[in-house]
């Protein structure tokens, strides 16, 4: 009886030893040498796996960071300068100064501004609505209001305003990962330079129609008159296809353009109220 037990133990031990030897050689043969810094960098990253950096996740981005020779074009929008500085220490490099960004919605087509000409009751998805028709208003460039962007946001930085029927971005939560920019079939969300106190000036319109039809579809549409282009002292405003664009990297927030706009398509947000006239009601709706 005891011999059977002993034999079993001996056989299993021998088998275990053999397997260990085989495994040792296999492990030597197929060894993957990985830079240990990848793990350290991954740990330093926020771990949201949002894809805002352009890579599939934080680990893929960490690999790219370790492989790269400089931080050119590599930035974690979620972690921002702080995280990039940490990574710079790990990788023993100089961090690049990257402007923090924030998303803005370039449409102000509230039911008051843009009259609804029809009512959409199909599947609640902007992409479906966009593929189907021009939209509930006369404007075929503006917000469709189904909230694909809100659904795409992983940071709870967006919600749909039931009154304006437009998405609202919470500046303190937005990390500029760009998920909403990709989710919007009409490309009305833009990543802009984040200024002090979250002040911003931008054209809140994407309508590329000529002045007449644009104005007819929406009271606050950009009609392409070009007044703002002329008044801007920093050449930050350009006009293309009847639509003005303010380059946030050139804009110095001098606020000269906004009063020039005949339709009020230029929004100023986060500024102290000018004494002479009260702030536009549109500001309150979006900020």
């Amino acid at each position, binding site marked *: 009886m005891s011999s059977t037990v002993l034999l079993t133990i001996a056989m299993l031990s021998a088998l275990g030893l053999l397997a260990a030897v085989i495994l040792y050689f296999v492990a030597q043969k197929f060894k993957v040498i990985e830079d240990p810094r990848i793990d350290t960098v991954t740990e330093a990253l926020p771990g949201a796996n949002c894809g805002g950096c352009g890579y599939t996740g934080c680990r893929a981005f960490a690999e790219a960071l370790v492989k790269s020779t400089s931080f050119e074009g590599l930035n974690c929008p979620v972690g921002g300068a702080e995280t990039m500085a940490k990574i710079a220490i790990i990788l023993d490099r100089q961090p690049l100064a990257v402007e923090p960004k924030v998303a803005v919605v370039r449409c102000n087509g509230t039911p008051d501004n843009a009259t609804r000409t*029809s009512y959409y*009751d*199909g*599947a609640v998805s902007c992409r*479906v609505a966009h*593929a189907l*028709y*021009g939209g509930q208003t006369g404007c*075929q460039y503006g917000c469709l209001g189904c909230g694909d962007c809100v659904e795409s946001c992983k940071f709870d930085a967006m919600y749909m305003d039931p009154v304006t029927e437009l998405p609202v971005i919470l500046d303190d939560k937005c990390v500029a990962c760009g998920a909403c920019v990709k989710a919007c079939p009409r490309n009305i969300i833009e990543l802009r330079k984040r200024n002090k106190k979250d002040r911003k000036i931008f054209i809140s319109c994407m309508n590329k129609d000529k002045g007449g039809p644009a104005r007819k579809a929406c009271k606050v549409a950009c009609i392409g008159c070009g007044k703002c282009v002329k008044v801007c002292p920093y050449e930050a405003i350009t006009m293309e296809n009847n639509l003005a664009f303010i380059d946030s990297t050139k804009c110095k927030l001098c606020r000269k353009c906004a009063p020039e706009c005949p339709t009020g398509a230029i929004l100023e947000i986060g500024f102290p109220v000018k004494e002479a006239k009260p702030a536009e009601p549109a500001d309150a709706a979006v900020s």
Partner: protein
Amino acid sequence: MFKTFPKGGIHPPENKLTADKPTAILPVPAQVTVPVSQHIGAPATPVVEKGAVVRAGQLIAQAKGFVSANIHSPVSGKVSKIDTVVDTTGYKQTAIVIDVEGDEWVETVDRSAGLVKDITLSREQIIERCQQCGLVGLGGATFPTHIKLTVPAGKKCDMVIINGVECEPYLTSDHRLMLEKGAEVLTGVSIIKKALGVESVIIGIEANKPDAISNLTELAKGFEGITVQPLKVKYPQGGEKQLIKACTGREVPSGGLPLDVGVVVQNVGTAFAVYEAVQKNKPLVERVVTVTGKSVKNPGNFQVRIGTPVSALIEAAGGMPDDTGKVVNGGPMMGKALAITDVPVTKGTSGIILFPAEESKRAEVLPCIRCGKCSSACAMGLEPWLISALSQKGMFEKAEQERITDCMECGACAYICPAKRPLLDYIRLGKATVIRMARERITK
């Protein structure tokens, strides 16, 4: 005797309110808006300028490339502007706006009513004439006819099927055409037969149009090689692949075209247009449109010029009822709601349906209960619940494997769904995305 396709299908209420209403000719409106893109393929290029005086039947936009169609002026008058206007898609497209003055036609068009039965043109001439006259398929897809009549090298066509099914509820424009212009339609069919060089033609008509079946069967005795095939009523029998299966038993392979089984399908409306183009040299500038709806005062079938505003058609049918909730361009199953009624009638407009608000509202969407009704209703043998969910979740590669591109968007799945899920909405999105992905793969 009555045939049908074996897989799937549904039986929506027919509501053919206008089946016994003779086609009325709508007066020429004061202004027409002619979009340059009324067909599948590249938009045509305008060849007239603002202020130009045009006559009805005159070429105003030239086809751009092979997959495109010429556009002719449907009226005589002056071009008031070439601008972007909202068309039936809800998006702005380039269109030629013409102020109507009188009704003068180009001399080459034979406007006499008499039937011309003898086909004098050769095969090549027929195809060329169809191309010149801007003919497109009038069943709804608006695919340029000259391409369908040209059999590519390596393919063989031995049968033509004429689609007189009109399986969409409410619509009766094809039905009226078969009753009123039977001889012309059959002459058109003979022309198509000659152009494709085939011996036999089958005209498929559903059993709910017994008068059309008997009329064409009687008339077909005077033509060679044309048989009328009565079909059981089932939606979507008007789908090319379903109609081929029903009439001949042949099955078009997944991702294939009817030509892969030697068949070309043409609509009866197209056959009539072919007759007018070849025998009368008349370009496609008119079509029959059904204007209907349960509360419409005077529903009917109207022969209208292309470019007539839809609002004028609604006026002719007694105005828009107060309870209207939705205006649909096309049939109730595959048609698309219009955002505004101030859009022009195009070559593909087969009907305008005004639904009462009560009927048109979509019901509350409930979770899928996996009952499988959509799978049994799908005439293409797909699993709509699956491909719809895949497309909703953005899993387009998987949807492609599930053959989402085979979907013909008939809407039987969404119709039958007890949970009222917007299946087709998402399938359409997925299909368009998958087709785009496939194209990108090819160009890479």
